[in-house]
């Protein structure tokens, strides 16, 4: 990872990797949507409504993963002052917030027909809502100070503190009684999803993952380019003055 902390090397790597990630995302999402909408069976309990899972679950996984990226970038920015750490964290936050919003909205649409309620304040739903607020708080703090360095430091500390929420989200369904059911895929005794439904789910998850990687690289490249332009403008102004 340290090797790519050099912005010039990162630019070369990301330029080469971006089309591959984008292509893989389109392929996986296309195949995943086809399988989840047309080639997978209805559930024995939930009927056709189960298809919401193929969007809801990958969005939830990526919401957690993107937060880990934000936190890891913040640690590297605070501890080692890596030039790329803060840029990556800053770039990942809005994507993760988007995944979290998709997870909350699709979960709500799923909850009404299955549970009978759009929203309940159980431990799983509440902790995911807290994750969404952590993302929003991180993004708000970045721009809350006149001095961007101070804003970046405050936001990084918030992102790292928020990591305690991740295990709470993951195990909330095991630690407490919740309306949300326990995990179906990442569990000790193997998945409790029939293979015909697990395949489209994993395809969609891979698609969401590649999408995240592609958009993250794109956003980091854009931020690096913006910083370069700012530096060039400053240099030009000094020459004029």
């Amino acid at each position, binding site marked *: 990872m340290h090797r790519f902390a050099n912005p010039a090397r990162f630019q070369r790597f990301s330029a080469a990797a971006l089309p591959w990630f984008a292509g893989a995302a389109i392929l996986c999402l296309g195949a995943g949507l086809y399988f989840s909408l047309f080639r997978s*069976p*209805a*559930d*024995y*309990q*939930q009927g056709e409504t*189960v298809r919401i*899972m193929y969007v809801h679950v990958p969005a939830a996984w990526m919401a957690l993963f993107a937060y880990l990226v934000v936190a890891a970038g913040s*640690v590297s920015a*605070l*501890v*080692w002052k890596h030039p790329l750490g803060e840029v990556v964290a800053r770039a990942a936050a809005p994507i993760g917030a988007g995944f979290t919003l998709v997870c909350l909205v699709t979960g709500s649409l799923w909850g009404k*027909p*299955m*549970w*009978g*309620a759009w929203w*309940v*304040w*159980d*431990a799983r739903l509440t902790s995911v809502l807290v994750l969404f607020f952590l993302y929003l708080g991180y993004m708000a703090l970045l721009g809350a100070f006149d001095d961007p360095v101070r804003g970046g430091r405050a936001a990084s500390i918030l992102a*790292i*503190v928020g*990591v*305690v929420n991740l295990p*709470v989200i993951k195990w909330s369904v095991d*630690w*407490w*009684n*919740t*309306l949300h*059911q*326990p*995990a*179906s895929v990442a*569990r000790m*005794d*193997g*998945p*409790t*999803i*029939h*293979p*015909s*439904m697990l395949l489209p789910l994993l395809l969609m998850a891979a698609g969401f993952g590649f999408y995240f990687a592609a958009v993250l690289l794109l956003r980091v490249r854009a931020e690096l380019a913006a910083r370069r332009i700012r530096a060039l403008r400053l240099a030009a102004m000094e020459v004029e003055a």
Partner: protein
Amino acid sequence: MTRKRRRLLVLAVALGLLGASTALVLSAFQDSLVFFYSPSDVVAKGPPGDRSFRLGGLVEPASVARSADGRQVTFRVTDGANAIAVAYRGILPDLFREGQGVVTEGRMLADGRFEAREVLAKHDETYMPREVADALKKSGHWKEGEPAPVGGRPAARP
């Protein structure tokens, strides 16, 4: 010690303390973080007075009865050890059936029945096609009212 090492150490110690304090707070609030109480909880601790609370468990098989006009439903919520009779007037979710998990919100009446204002259905973490579920039931690997076998495979017998 270099400044980088010191920053890393401070961060690790702060995170450790934060994690420990979060764990303490969450375990201290254990009772109020649960979404619902089981019938055994209610029997052991007694209902929280006149206050509204949520009662969760499985709908006991062969306990659902409707009134003559079909609007009032009574059923028993069980966790295997204890069961509490529930009365509800309103629309039930589609997943509501005997053997299904439910969470009901309401209060205990003086006669020991639970009057529900809201009934939510709870489904488990098992997903499988209907044909597989039917085949499992037909072959006797899974009986009505039991938890579903893991992953659409017959549950391993201990």
